[in-house]
């Protein structure tokens, strides 16, 4: 707080270190309403929920009075953990399978622990996994990438070639089309890890696919579609419309500053912003340009949305606007009454998030949440809202609106059009019930 004494003097009763430099700057620039709210909230914390000293500890907190070992011993040298890993106290937040969801680990999914993540970037080691025939650790020196089909010159690129080409780095979310798929008919799983955890967001680095298609002389008139294919055992294939392929699709090798992790397609995967994860083909070995869609297994037998009249929607791809509160969320228990930040994530496959509203009474009344920067197109956006919990039951919801003006639907609104058997593309508003005990659970309304 050095150098901020003038500003601090203008704010009465600020708890020690409560304001960050940014917030202090915000005061100077006139954003006082938000701060006034925050001050009231913080005052409530110090009055209510602060841990009282226990009997026999009149002199103070033993954690302060008796210095802990890390204050009185020599720490470990540099590079003793040459590729760093999280603290041993973080072992609870790991990717997990949902028991009973799948039968074979190599054709399964593990969910990201959204309940404990901050900001918008998913740590690469916690990125959700979905494999169709197991994951491979592909030797980058032996990996090849081919473009063929309706092109002037079918070409082969090595990783050397691809990594020499001009690159872009962009932050995008990836969501499995089946995310929240277990919840179409009723509540099925307890926590946000399992309801929404097939969702991650990373900075991806690679070559724009449009540049590579141009390099091969793709026929952009007859070539209406591309087929993307993986090098793994499943050789996963998906059709992507040429309009999308030329827009913002990336042939990516980098993820969050390092190479892709093997589970995420090392050394090469397709990044198809706004489109469901199955199209982001991992271990990408080939792109074919064609004049018709390809009707592959994962766009004919799976990733088709069954409607009440028995028709199956084919080539459903875009992940529509959606949001979810990550804390407080199902399976968590509030530690006492008073101030909380309701925090969560919003995203849209059609562009930027414009606004997120939050309700604590099951959707009767709403307040607009703060969007934390950056707010990027087809990326996760973090929202926060101050909340005083008075110990009474509450029904927490978030509702996102994207730049097209589309408002995230309720579960009954979605069911009215799509029934309950379509598995994919459930972007309904999520409800978490807070009990007087502080326990939060997954519920559906209406």
């Amino acid at each position, binding site marked *: 707080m050095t150098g901020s004494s003038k500003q601090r003097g203008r704010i009465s009763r600020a708890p020690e270190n409560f304001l960050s430099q940014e917030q202090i700057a915000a005061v100077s620039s006139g954003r006082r309403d938000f701060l006034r709210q925050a001050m009231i909230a913080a005052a409530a914390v110090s009055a209510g929920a602060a841990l009282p000293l226990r009997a026999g500890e009149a002199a103070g907190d033993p954690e302060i009075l008796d210095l802990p070992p890390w204050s009185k011993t020599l720490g470990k040298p540099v590079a003793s953990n040459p590729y760093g890993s999280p603290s041993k106290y973080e072992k609870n937040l790991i990717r997990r399978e949902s028991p009973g969801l799948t039968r074979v680990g190599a054709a399964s999914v593990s969910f990201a622990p959204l309940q404990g993540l901050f900001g918008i970037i998913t740590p690469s080691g916690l990125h959700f996994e979905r494999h169709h025939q197991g994951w491979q650790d592909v030797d980058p020196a032996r990996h090849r990438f081919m473009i063929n089909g309706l092109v002037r010159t079918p070409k082969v690129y090595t990783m050397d070639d691809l990594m020499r080409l001009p690159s872009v780095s962009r932050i995008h979310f990836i969501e499995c089309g089946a995310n929240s798929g277990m919840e179409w008919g009723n509540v099925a799983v307890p926590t946000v890890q399992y309801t929404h955890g097939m969702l991650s967001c990373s900075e991806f680095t690679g070559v724009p696919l449009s540049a590579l298609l141009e390099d091969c002389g793709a026929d952009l008139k007859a070539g209406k579609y591309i087929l993307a294919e993986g090098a793994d055992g499943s050789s996963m294939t998906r059709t992507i419309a040429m309009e999308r392929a030329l827009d913002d699709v990336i042939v990516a090798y980098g993820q969050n500053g390092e190479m892709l992790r093997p589970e995420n397609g090392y050394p090469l995967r397709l990044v198809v912003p706004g489109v469901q994860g199955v199209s982001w083909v991992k271990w990408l*070995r080939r792109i074919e340009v064609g004049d018709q869609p390809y009707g592959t297994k994962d766009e004919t037998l799976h990733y088709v949305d069954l409607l009440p009249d028995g028709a199956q929607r084919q080539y459903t791809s875009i992940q529509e606007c959606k949001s979810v509160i990550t804390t407080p969320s199902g399976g968590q228990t509030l530690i006492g009454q008073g101030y909380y930040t309701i925090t969560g994530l919003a995203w849209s496959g059609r562009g930027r998030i414009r606004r997120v509203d939050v309700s604590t009474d099951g959707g009767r009344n709403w307040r607009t949440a703060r969007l934390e920067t950056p707010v990027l197109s087809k990326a996760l956006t973090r929202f926060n809202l101050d909340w005083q919990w008075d110990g009474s039951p509450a029904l927490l919801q978030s509702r996102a609106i994207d730049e097209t003006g589309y408002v995230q639907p309720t579960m009954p609104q979605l069911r009215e059009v799509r029934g309950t058997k379509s598995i994919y593309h459930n972007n309904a508003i999520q409800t978490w019930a807070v009990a007087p005990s502080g326990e939060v659970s997954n519920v559906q309304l209406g």
Partner: protein
Amino acid sequence: MSSWDRATAIKLGLSALALATIAASPLAGASNLGRPATPAEIAAWDIDVRPDFAGLPAGSGSVEQGMEVWESKCESCHGTFGESNEVFTPLAGGTTRADQDSGRVKSLVGPNVPQRTTLMKLSTVSTLFDYIRRAMPWNAPKSLSDDEVYAVTAYVLYLNDVVSDDFVLDQDSIREVQNRLPNRNGMTRDHGLWEVAGKADTHNTACMKNCAADVEISSSLPEYARDSHGNLADQNRSFGPVRGTTTAASAAPAATTAPTQPAGTSRLAMAEEYGCTGCHAMDDTIVGPGFRQVAQRYADKAGSLDQVAAKIRAGGSGAWGSMPMPAQEQLNEEQARELAEWILSGAN
């Protein structure tokens, strides 16, 4: 599909267009990177078959030949009649003759849809052929010859009464089959989820005050399912604004899945990595016997280590019932021995 020919054929017509559209390439100056693909390279990788049968290789296979391949390579996961729901969801069943006439599978309609089988959903026969060719068998993808792919495809169609038991599938007869697929008219592309600018299904509004919301709780997790995902206290931090709710006794590593050791350091991880656990559990029979059942049977038998190690790599049937175990050639002899040793010592 064989695009080399097509690319060559359209080459002349395309050149002018390509030159026009590629005038301002961002790769200007860098486009000497990469090299032309050879016809043999394209043939090796370009194995996709489209709904219009572009890319379909020459070949043929009968239902009878398909049954032979099926029994040695497919049955262990999919069941004798493609009906198994043990390892994967069922392939066959759920369709009728009337569906074959209409091209729409009736059992997909209504609130009580049973388990959806592959043949209930399949709208293009190319999809079945393409997928078997690129990804099956599960543990040895791309190992079938084109004739075997034809044969297995024919057998799967036979299991669903789409073709008769004397049918021979080839690049001509496959077109007839397309016209008999029970769900060939079952797909629609009339939706807004294909294009970024597509029309949305729902039209919620952003009401802010006194909104007409139905706030009755209609669904929640039943009490008995409280611990269905383990102890949620162990799935949250033990500090911060919230705690995980205690739903079960701690200690039990929630999830069968939370790895306690880095992959590769335990034999269990190895068994998982090589797909053994798809069919074998620790104690109980899934498709094959539990590891400890195997240990029990071979306890104190001379030469059991060699025998089990060999069996892992060669496969076999009869010892534990009629369900055959496919050969697991993805393990080398040393790895098979290592696994056998672990299994025989009680898989601990």
